[in-house]
């Protein structure tokens, strides 16, 4: 599964992808096609590379070379089509041959700058042979034409053409021009054949240059959001523990930043098996779920993660079930869409696919009696398959024995007068605490009152609370 698919299902991932400074659609294509990695050894190597890029960016002295590198990124042309033509052993035209020559010269520049920066990953192949072929005089310039030295008959034909005046002897001139075109074709064929042998090297370099750019873009992102290298938690069947200290959600943090507010970091630990997440309305339960999904996904796409520290066990897939996805176009209600999604996920789990499941208030759109029953069954299922999962809910006293986390919650003492929803986070303690009891906080009416909802209405509601 590639980045594009995860960007669609994990909120906040596309946002970060858009924040990455990439030189164009060529590199973005590589990012979007990168795959969800489940191998710890590969991820460790990747994190080493990313750490190196981040180290380089952090050294003020390397700024000139970094700028040079950034400039080089913008100079790379998308020669996908030309490479394809080489692979298929087509005869390249002059424009395509120029592109290859220009690309080979760029590779040399990249090699030099990466060497200066001490970035010894994604090493580029030596393309001297390409350069020798396309710069036969060793002039060192990037300009290109079909040089006389490629073929004696071509140079003879060209020489002959110079002695003919096209206006006076148009026929003769045309025939010699045709001969030149034929000779040039032969030369292009010769060059294309030789170059097609070097296709794997060119292709590799083309890919690696895009990778280098992505590494530095990821490093920049890490610098910008204070991201850290996640540890890969050892993947035993029982002891897998996801542990994140002070995570933030970059997208929400940015939004808060625009109104001069700060995102309050949250720490969370998950073990194998299900865990319930309770908390008052507006206490950020959904944000916890979204951020967890984001961090897990970032880790497995070889990004650093927005937290103070993170230990992440690897999974095969991540699911974020928010339940507000009404599939109206397919004629499904939000309840139906949610049930079908959960059903598909449970089928995966039954097949033994290890995954991280994050569900926001399952079955909340149906009657509370059946809703609670569905939740209980889900928890039982996840317990049975020992699936690492976090499920937020408002249903309380369900008699479930699973682990429970609770958002510390709301401190109404500080509120003076009417509560401005935008000021909510001033009075909210978003930290999570382990909850031994099964009850849920009864704060909905209090919050509604503070928000300024009509008193008589609240009184009336209060009478119905059992």
């Amino acid at each position, binding site marked *: 599964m590639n980045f594009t698919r995860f960007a669609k299902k994990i909120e906040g991932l596309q946002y970060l992808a858009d924040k990455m400074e990439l030189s164009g659609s060529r590199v973005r294509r590589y990012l979007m096609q990168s795959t969800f990695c489940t191998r710890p050894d590969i991820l460790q190597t990747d994190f080493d590379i990313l750490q190196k890029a981040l180290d380089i960016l952090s050294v003020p002295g390397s700024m000139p070379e970094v700028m040079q590198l950034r400039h080089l990124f913008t100079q790379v042309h998308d020669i996908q089509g030309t490479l394809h033509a080489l692979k298929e052993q087509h005869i390249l035209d002059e*424009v395509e041959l120029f592109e290859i020559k220009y690309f080979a010269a760029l590779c040399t520049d990249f090699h030099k700058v990466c060497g200066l920066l001490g970035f010894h990953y994604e090493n580029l192949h030596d393309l001297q042979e390409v350069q020798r072929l396309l710069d036969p005089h060793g002039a060192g310039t990037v300009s290109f034409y079909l040089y006389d030295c490629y073929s004696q008959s071509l140079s003879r034909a*060209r020489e002959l053409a110079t002695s003919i005046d096209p206006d006076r002897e148009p026929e003769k001139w045309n025939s010699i021009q045709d001969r030149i*075109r034929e000779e040039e074709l032969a030369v292009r064929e010769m060059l294309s054949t030789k170059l097609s042998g070097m296709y794997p090297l060119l292709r590799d370099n083309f890919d690696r240059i895009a990778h280098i750019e992505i590494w530095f873009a990821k490093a920049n992102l890490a610098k910008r959001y204070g991201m850290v290298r996640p540890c890969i938690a050892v993947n035993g069947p029982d002891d897998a523990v996801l542990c994140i200290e002070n995570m933030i959600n970059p997208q929400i943090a940015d939004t808060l930043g625009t109104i001069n507010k700060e995102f309050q970091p949250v720490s969370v630990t998950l073990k194998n098996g299900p865990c319930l997440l309770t908390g008052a309305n507006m206490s950020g339960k959904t944000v916890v779920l979204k951020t967890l999904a984001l961090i897990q996904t970032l880790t497995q796409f070889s990004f650093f993660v927005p937290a103070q520290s993170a230990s992440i066990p690897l999974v095969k897939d991540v699911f974020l079930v928010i339940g507000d996805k009404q599939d109206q176009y397919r004629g499904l209600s939000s309840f139906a869409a949610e049930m079908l999604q959960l059903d598909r996920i449970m089928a995966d789990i039954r097949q033994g696919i290890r995954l991280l499941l994050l569900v926001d208030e399952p079955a909340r759109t149906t009657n509370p009696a059946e809703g609670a029953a569905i939740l209980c069954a889900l928890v039982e299922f996840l317990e049975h398959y020992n699936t690492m999962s976090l499920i937020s809910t408002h249903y309380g006293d369900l008699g479930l024995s699973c682990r429970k986390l609770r958002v510390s919650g709301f401190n109404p003492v500080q509120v003076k007068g009417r509560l401005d929803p935008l000021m909510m986070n001033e009075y909210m303690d978003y930290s999570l605490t382990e909850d031994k009891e099964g009850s849920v906080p009864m704060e909905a009416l209090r919050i509604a009152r503070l928000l300024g909802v009509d008193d008589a209405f609240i009184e009336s509601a209060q009478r119905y609370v059992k």
Partner: protein
Amino acid sequence: MPFVDQIVRYGSLSVVGLGKNTGKTECLRYVMGRLFDMHKIVAVTSIGVDGEGVDQVTFTPKPRIYLEKGMYFTTVSSFYEKKRFLAEICHIEDQATVLGKMVTARALERGKMVLAGPSETVSLQQWVRQIPERFPVDVCLVDGAISRLSPASPVVTRSMILATGAAYSANMRTLVERTRYVYDTVKLPAASPGLTEKLKNVTKGIRVITSQGKINDPGVGSALLSDQVRQVLETCGSRLYVPGVVSNVLLKALGERKEVGETELYVRDFSRIFAEPRVFYTFIRRGGRIFQLFTTHLLAICVNPVSPEGFRLNSAELVENIQRQVDVPVYDIKRIR
């Protein structure tokens, strides 16, 4: 000819034909020939497609441009591949157009070429700026055209030559009047640098300039339709900026307003005014003023007294008649050499 020295001083030139077959290509050839004699290195391109062997409108033979050895030129790759002379590719733009990528090459021998360069203002501007940075070029030449169909403005170059001729109008008086009209629009005064700075990045809609120099967006479309024009008249004050085309309808309506005397109309450059001469002059006569954000130095007007149908005006008389109306030198392009 004196104006060739000026071209070198300005570093860039566009040759703009007022219509097809007005001798634009001959004028360009003349300029290129003279610059070559002066050992100046020239880069040339064209707004849109130009330089075909046969004029695509009238199917009469049209002189093709000869590129001299050492000249740089920019065209799309699909035309470059058809060249029948030796040239080396020096640069390729990564972005592709419908006709392929933009190729800049240097002629290694004399040859003919169909040129099709950048077709919108921004990329043309980039071309004029980047070519001398990349290559040892003395003068950038743009084969231009004024037309609704060409979104690129020739005003991106620092100097300009207008080509006009019998093909534009076979009636001597009409030809002189129309040429005079274009001349008058080219010579419209420049907006103040401060205002230009504020307005130059606005390329859509309409803007109102308040008396304090603030720029407001009245939220009116582009003032091409009479309905939009009515809105403009009702909601906007007397200082207006129209970044797109100034239509006949708009200028007419502005010219008929009572407060036309206080009206200041700002346009990007002369090539964006698409109004009938009568409407333009009525607006000006009644006290309306028009300013351009971007101006260029008009060096000369070249006339071609022969129309593609073979109609021939009296050269000396034509030159004299136009010369009486304008303040720049006028030449018969056929007699100039």
